């Protein structure tokens, strides 16, 4: 996802060269190359390529239905792919990826405490009952305090607020010492303060744990102060690279296949897929126009 090829807009047959890494820099944690996913006969992702290095915080930006969750599931290995490769550096087992779903729907009556959920992150995939041990307990508390949620250890997971639950789920995901952390819309349904806390927590984790973080969101703004790079999805295609190189009118216009305005105001970015340009956009990419011309 670093320059120089990072800004290449990947569409169809255009420019399929892999990014040339500078000599001596470590290999990327994640390399996604020409990923194509078909669901029910529809190409949800078309030739998506990007990579991600250790310690990077990347935003996976796109409107509802742009394929963000499908992309995350493909990286997790839970989604079959029609073409392309997803390569994770080093060993690949179920501990090398940490996954944070949007929310777990658990009744507040159920006796699963935050520390129980985090302990299941340590060894929840193993057989047997998992005898109570002080090292397991200490590890769970260490993980909870690394996300600033030690005070929630004995609270029931179902009774936590959205922001609190995000923290506990992040601690759960960190338990296996992953090199890559994937979060599916972690900022949806959070209030402004929780949103900022979650984003700065994730930025802190990239520094303290050296983990690469890929965060899907439909609103780019909360991530802007901390985000190193961006994977922008529209119509199943992706543009990736440094934020300033991708979130630009010309790059996004090519991605959307219609005119896109990128406005900067008070440190915020407003991406406007202009309705007045829909007709000219249709001439370029009629299929996209049906999908993207009517934003969700």
């Amino acid at each position, binding site marked *: 996802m670093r320059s120089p090829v990072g800004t290449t807009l990947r569409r169809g047959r255009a420019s399929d060269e892999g990014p040339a890494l500078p000599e001596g820099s470590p290999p990327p944690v994640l390399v996604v190359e020409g990923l194509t996913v078909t669901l029910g006969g529809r190409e949800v992702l078309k030739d998506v390529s990007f990579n991600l290095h250790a310690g990077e915080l990347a935003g996976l930006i796109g409107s509802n239905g742009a394929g963000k969750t499908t992309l995350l599931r493909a990286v997790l290995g839970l989604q079959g792919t029609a073409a392309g490769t997803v390569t994770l550096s080093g060993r690949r087992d179920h501990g090398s990826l940490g996954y944070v779903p949007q929310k777990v729907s658990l009744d507040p009556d159920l006796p699963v405490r935050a520390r129980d959920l985090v302990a299941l992150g340590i060894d*929840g995939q193993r057989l047997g009952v998992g005898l109570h041990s002080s090292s397991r307990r200490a590890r769970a508390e260490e993980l909870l305090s690394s996300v600033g949620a030690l005070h929630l250890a004995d609270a029931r997971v179902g009774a936590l607020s959205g922001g609190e639950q995000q923290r506990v789920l992040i601690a759960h995901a960190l338990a296996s010492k992953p090199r890559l952390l994937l979060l599916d819309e972690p900022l949806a349904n959070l209030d402004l303060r929780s949103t900022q806390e979650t984003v700065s927590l994730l930025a802190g984790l990239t520094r303290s744990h050296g983990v690469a973080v890929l965060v899907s969101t439909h609103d780019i703004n909360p991530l802007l102060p901390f985000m190193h790079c961006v994977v922008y999805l529209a119509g199943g295609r992706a543009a990736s690279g440094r934020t300033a190189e991708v979130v630009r009118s010309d790059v996004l216009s090519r991605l959307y296949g219609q005119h896109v305005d990128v406005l900067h105001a008070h440190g915020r970015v407003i991406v406007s897929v202009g309705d007045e340009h829909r007709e000219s956009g249709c001439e370029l990419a009629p299929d996209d126009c049906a999908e993207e011309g009517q934003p969700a």
Partner: protein
Amino acid sequence: MSVLHAVFAPGFFTSGPVLAAVLIGGVVALVSAPAGFLTVMRSHSFAGHAFSEVTATGGSAAYLVGVGPLLGYVVAALAGAGAMGALGVERHKSRDLVAGVVLGATLGLTALFLYLTTTSQSTSGAAVTVLFGSLFAVSSSDWPTVVALGGAALALVGVGWRPLLLSSVSPELAAARGVRLRLVESAYLAAVALAVALASMTVGAILSTALLVGPAAAALRFARTPARACAWAAAIGLVAVWGGIVLAYDSYDWPPSQQGWPVSFFVVFLVLATYLASYLFGRHRDPAHRDPAHRDPAHRDPAHRDPAHRDPAHRDPAHRDPAHRDPAHRGEA
């Protein structure tokens, strides 16, 4: 001594059928506890109910064929587990539909089998035994089978405990961890099938759900952790089953018939009583106000002192402006 006699009527401890009932009922209570807890965790109590209908069909078929009802219960419950696993694993909504369809069909078969049994063999007690159980009538030669099947169910839950728990909290999290959801679901269904089949012997097929789900539901109010919830459910189940046996034995000289009241009534009644008591005396009546999270001021949390929070960007008034209010932003959405 007179108090003891008032509770345990003379002959209680020397009666063969009573001791067999105590042993078999105890095993059933222990097996139902973790199976019931997982059923509550997974919100599958309707599937548990469907199991009870299926075992009723199996029990009535066993009477018609002339084999022991336990064999009928177990075979039917495991077949039901296989069908549910094959048809309804993927989505919860579809599973409820499947369970509903299976339920109607099996009740019809039960009616047919019981009708044929009573008309052809003049054993009028079959219907009551299959539907409502008869713990004192359990053949004492059945206990090794009951212990073996109960042990198998407990072993399944024990071996699969952590994946079962994780997939109950969130199938997505479990799948991301490489847990094979279908395998775990099959283990769960098999364990519940065995628990329901054994419970059908004690309280009858119709009431077996009460023994499966009732103690587990009450246990949630007393326990803080999954393991303790299972222990509480086992304790409540034992109290209900053994208490039911004592009361049923005592009821032999109760009106109206001086023939005793059915043990199933007492067991299910005691389950209901503990469930109601759990609302009155449970420690976790109101988790929102009792969890430490809500007592502790969030500001003690070290993360809140993170310098990133003092990032000037966050003080920018524009940041406080919710994105939705910006008309231009809607175009991007």
